[in-house]
């Protein structure tokens, strides 16, 4: 395909878009992995939410943080 005299601008636009989308996806994946790992480490050390350790406590209906 002949992109004509402005090929640089067309290809640069597609390359920049790909780079920004890739950065967004990579950031999301790395951030998720870091949080999963941190949560696993805390749970391995015995950290529990109050609703998990209080006998007879009702299950959290709203926020589960």
């Amino acid at each position: 395909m002949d992109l004509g005299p402005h090929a640089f601008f067309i290809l640069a636009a597609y390359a920049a878009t790909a780079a920004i989308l890739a950065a967004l996806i990579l950031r999301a994946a790395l951030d998720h992995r870091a949080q999963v790992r941190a949560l696993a480490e805390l749970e391995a050390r015995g950290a529990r939410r109050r609703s998990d350790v209080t006998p007879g406590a009702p299950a959290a209906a709203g926020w589960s943080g």
Partner: protein
Amino acid sequence: MLARPADPRLRGSALRRIAAATGGGYIASMLTQLANPSVFLRWSGAALPFLAAAAAVLLAVGLSMAWFLAPADYQQGETVRIMFLHVPAAWLALGFYAIMAASALGTLVWRHPLADVSQKAAAPIGAGFALICLVTGALWGKPMWGAYWVWDARLTSVLVLFLMYCGILALWRTIEDPSRAARAVSILTLVGSVNLPIIKFSVDWWNTLHQPASVLRPGGPAIHPSMLYPLLVMAAAFALIAVTLHLAGMRTEILRRRVRTLSLLEAERLDRQAA
């Protein structure tokens, strides 16, 4: 203003009472149930692979249409292919700000924690699409207008949108407590939403170098179907990518808050043991 209930369970039931009182009925209670963070984690986890796959397929179809089906423009030549990135990115940059503004209302009015999470997860995605819009616009402007940048109303208002996104991202990082940060960010987001109609109508209100609306305008699109359909498919693909990233970001944010809660509880436990 009502105080935020200390017990998260009360917030959920308060939301259900509001839904019942406002006559939302079945749909409102279903939405409330879906917005429960634990339920959200379950359904979003199941939906994400399908959304990601659909986004990839649609992007492949959209790129094929943009490159091999859409003709070169009679005036702009091949540079019109930048439109298939620039226009969807602009729509999503505006759309994600609207999502943040709606979530800000959810935070300030209904005080739903998932609204906080939605706001925070939407900000980097909106900023990313605003940046794509600015960069592709500059690369389109240089061969067509002879300049990467001019201080016209449309370009400047989109730059302000990008700077708003940056300010919001910075504010999220400034305040440690997520609930307090969400309230501060909500106010800033709602103030910044004044910019949305300015961006949309800037090309009508002022003399600008930027062309007026060609798709979302009274009287229907002014673009030939051979270019309109690839544009709409690319917009759908970008939207699916953005929604997938948004759901993934919300899941990560919920995990981050769990990590924060467990870290605080662990610190409390260690303090008690030391005392």
